[in-house]
């Protein structure tokens, strides 16, 4: 019997683990999964629940320890410091090394900082890795140790961090650069809805506000932050920098693997080095694909990339074809789902239809093509929608009328919940009448 090909995967996040599982499903290849963050795959998306006391760390491990042995996936809990691409060898921090036949980079992201004065101080941190959660326990264990935290950056991680700190009775000031929360992605009405919801929780949300500097008395520990707009100083014991993430590729800079913002890959996730691939947050596509950004730092796409590359590595070369865009999030108590594309301002030739129930804090926003009435995408707040329904609507170029006529089928809320299709439809018809009059 021939010696099985050895595939080494750096990174045991959702991309790397999905890849390993699917390679095992389809082949007998030798698989090694390497991470310096955590010995076992864990659900990054659930880190917040450990801090809030909804879950324990052990609950974040989806597979029992047997799983890796049973599936013959070798685990290495070490840091890779260097890749010798000529000889196909990985060098670890402890001078150990590992030979591979194929290498996959799935190293994910690190928090992105923008060179603010004082960003190195103790008490300043992002929220991405397991280690960040451990830091947070140290910096903000309770409101006696941390009376106020300042969060910088109005995105999904920022609002999670706000919710987390809020449960420990820590006052939160939330600095957002845009006029409304997540306004770069959400259209104004719905950004406003979320903005109001965050304020209602008791979060001191400051819109159109920029961080100027992080201050300290002793150049060790954070004391306060200063704001550009009015030079105001806000005393705080924790600064959460949640201004986005960037690919985790610093250790590749000396290698001959081509990098730009991320590891540059083609539609098969191939890098410039023949037997090296990259997937997930750390990969940057060298071609365009619909409206998708070149670096997709989204949990779901990481998983899809893992599924796809497994095919290629098992002898079935498969291009990245992720289907229709979807995503989800939760802003305190408001669940958000999106299918297809809804932009913060409609693209040329498109328009938005917006419906909301102010009191119930529920809303939907649909982007459609004006000339053809073609349905392009939907944002939903506080109403659960069926993925399969919208995937089919998008694939078969349905109109917005069709979608609203069949909204009952799209509903995924629990049984006995209130339904809104009638109200939504009435509003659409009224707006249409006005437009045609």
């Amino acid at each position, binding site marked *: 019997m021939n010696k099985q090909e050895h595939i080494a995967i750096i990174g045991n996040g959702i991309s790397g683990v999905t890849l390993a599982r699917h390679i095992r499903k389809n082949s007998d290849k030798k698989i090694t999964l390497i991470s310096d963050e955590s010995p076992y795959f864990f*659900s990054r998306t659930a880190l917040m629940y450990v801090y809030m006391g909804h*879950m324990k760390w052990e609950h974040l491990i989806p597979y029992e320890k047997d799983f890796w042995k049973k599936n013959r996936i070798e685990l290495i809990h070490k840091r890779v410091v260097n890749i010798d691409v000529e000889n196909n060898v990985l060098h670890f921090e402890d001078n150990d090394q590992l030979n591979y036949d194929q290498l996959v980079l799935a190293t994910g992201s690190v928090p992105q900082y923008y060179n603010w004065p004082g960003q190195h101080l103790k008490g300043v941190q992002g929220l991405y890795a397991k280690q960040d959660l451990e830091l947070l326990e140290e910096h903000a264990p309770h409101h006696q140790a941390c009376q106020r935290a300042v969060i910088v950056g109005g995105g999904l991680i920022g609002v999670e961090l706000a919710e987390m700190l809020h449960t420990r009775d820590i006052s939160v000031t939330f600095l957002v650069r845009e006029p409304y929360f997540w306004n770069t992605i959400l259209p104004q009405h719905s950004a406003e809805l979320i903005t109001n919801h965050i304020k209602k929780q008791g979060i001191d949300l400051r819109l159109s506000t920029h961080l100027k500097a992080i201050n300290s008395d002793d150049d060790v520990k954070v004391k306060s932050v200063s704001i550009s707009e009015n030079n105001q100083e806000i005393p705080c014991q924790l600064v959460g920098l949640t201004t986005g993430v960037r690919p985790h590729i610093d250790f590749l800079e000396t290698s001959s693997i081509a990098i730009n913002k991320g590891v540059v890959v083609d539609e098969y996730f191939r890098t410039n080095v023949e037997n090296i691939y990259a997937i997930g947050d750390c990969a940057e596509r060298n071609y365009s694909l619909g409206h998708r950004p070149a670096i997709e730092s989204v949990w779901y796409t990481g998983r899809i990339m893992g*599924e796809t590359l497994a095919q290629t590595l098992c002898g079935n070369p*498969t291009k990245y074809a992720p289907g229709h865009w979807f995503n989800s999030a939760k802003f305190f108590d408001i669940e958000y789902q999106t299918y297809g594309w809804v932009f913060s301002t409609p693209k040329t030739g498109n328009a938005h239809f917006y419906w909301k129930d102010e009191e119930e804090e529920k809303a939907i926003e649909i982007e459609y093509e004006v000339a053809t009435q073609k349905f392009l995408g939907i944002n939903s707040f506080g109403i659960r929608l069926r993925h399969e329904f919208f995937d089919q609507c998008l694939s078969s170029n349905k109109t917005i009328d069709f979608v609203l006529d069949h909204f009952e089928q799209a509903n995924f809320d629990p049984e006995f919940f209130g339904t809104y299709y009638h109200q939504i439809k009435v509003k659409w018809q009224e707006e249409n009448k006005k437009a045609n009059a």
Partner: protein
Amino acid sequence: MALENTSFTGNAAANLSNQQKIFLFTGFSGLFITFIASFNAIQSQLAVWLAVALGLISIGVIGYSRELYKNTMPGIKNDYVFFKSLTNRGIWAYALGIFLTGFYVVLYFYPSYLGLNESGENTGLVALFDPLSKWLSGNSASQWFVYGVFYTLAILLFGMKFLWKYRHNKYQRLRTFSVMFFQLGFAFLIPELMARLNSDSFALPYYDLKNIWPLNYYNFEQYRVDEFISAGNIGLALLIFGILSILVITPILTYKYGKRWYCSWVCGCGGLAETAGDSFRHLSDKSIQAWKIERWMVHLVTVFVVLMTMAVVATYLGYDAEKYWLTKPAFLIGSTILLTAVYAWVLIYKREAFKKDALIAGGGFLALIITLVSLHLIGWTPHLFFIEAEPLRASYGFLIGSIFSGVIGTGFYPILGNRVWCRFGCPMAAILGFQQRLFSKFRITTNGGQCISCGNCSVYCEMGIDVRAYAQRGENIVRSSCVGCGICSSVCPRGVLKLENDNPNNRLNENEILFGNKLNLKDYVQ
């Protein structure tokens, strides 16, 4: 600080507000009255003292719950669940567990300590409840009446707490109203009032109509059947209802709605688990090992209850052929044919739904039953299952009826979670689960590719189902143990899970590649 072994700093205990402390004190004062009553400290004005005690307990629980939720926004707020001693197997959890198990031991085995006196006037705690019992049924209280009052009160009060906690979720609210209604009406008031109809010439057995055999394992014992028969048409109707309940009504309702129609909407054990036990639901063991133990244990109990009931019924049919139109051979042969038919149907139509060990174990038990029934009918064995029915009945009553469902099932809430009995021991749940797994429209649908593997669903599943394992693969959840409480769907932060009754043919959707991906696997296979 490593996350694996932290006992986080979240200072939960200190978070009690003054109002909460007052309501806690109020509730415990009520309990304290019942406690001193147990030592005969209360001799007069029993009705007043009882009203004061129950009133204080009620005010305590309701007030405490209100304080707990009044400043929160509607939504899932499981904050601090794993920091609190009571809900994270800390010292308070063990203290409560010991108190509850102690109470059950006294209740089942030493009711005289509660003041029960069957030959004269009650004393102590039971006497405290005499006025209420006399007012309802006309009879003196028993230890079971005392238990029934506490049980019903627990479901009503903690039900109100649950209603507050889930005020944003209509499914949870309706389900909770339902268990509160069935407990108060069917389990408590109706049987008590039915007792008023009894006279010297007419007596109905104490019958909680929603308590179906085999959960109500004693329903077909001779004294009850005799009482049913001697109570004329009403009694006969009740007896027929009892038989139809398990053979006709449960399969139909489970087909339409899944076993949740019973386990989390009607059942008293489920009702207590969902209300008073709600704070402990996350303690259920989710390991594959626990699942293995569950499958064996709950089905062994089911076999036990079937054998025991057959033996008990056969005994009295045997010695009084005049009194019952059903003869012993007819009963035994009929039961055996029914069991054989179920097994044959599974083998022919539902084979793929079972693991091999389940088919073999099922076949083994069936072969054993057929052999023993045959041997007995041709007269080779004096007793149906080698031993007399009475020790079989008594040991079931002791081991399963008392120890498992009571002492362990409820006493261990704070340690093992709130559905230990339902999951590992309840034969009714096993039969409904069998129906649910094989023919039902019910499933929990996974919403395409939206699962983020966070694991809230698995943690808060009281039945120990690793919901995430299915959801992250995009598969629907069709498990015999699922009681359809809907909490997985409620705690899901991304709207991934939905309890549904739909076409039974497309319940299982095992995909290789998740939804939201254009990959076409068929190309690969060909």
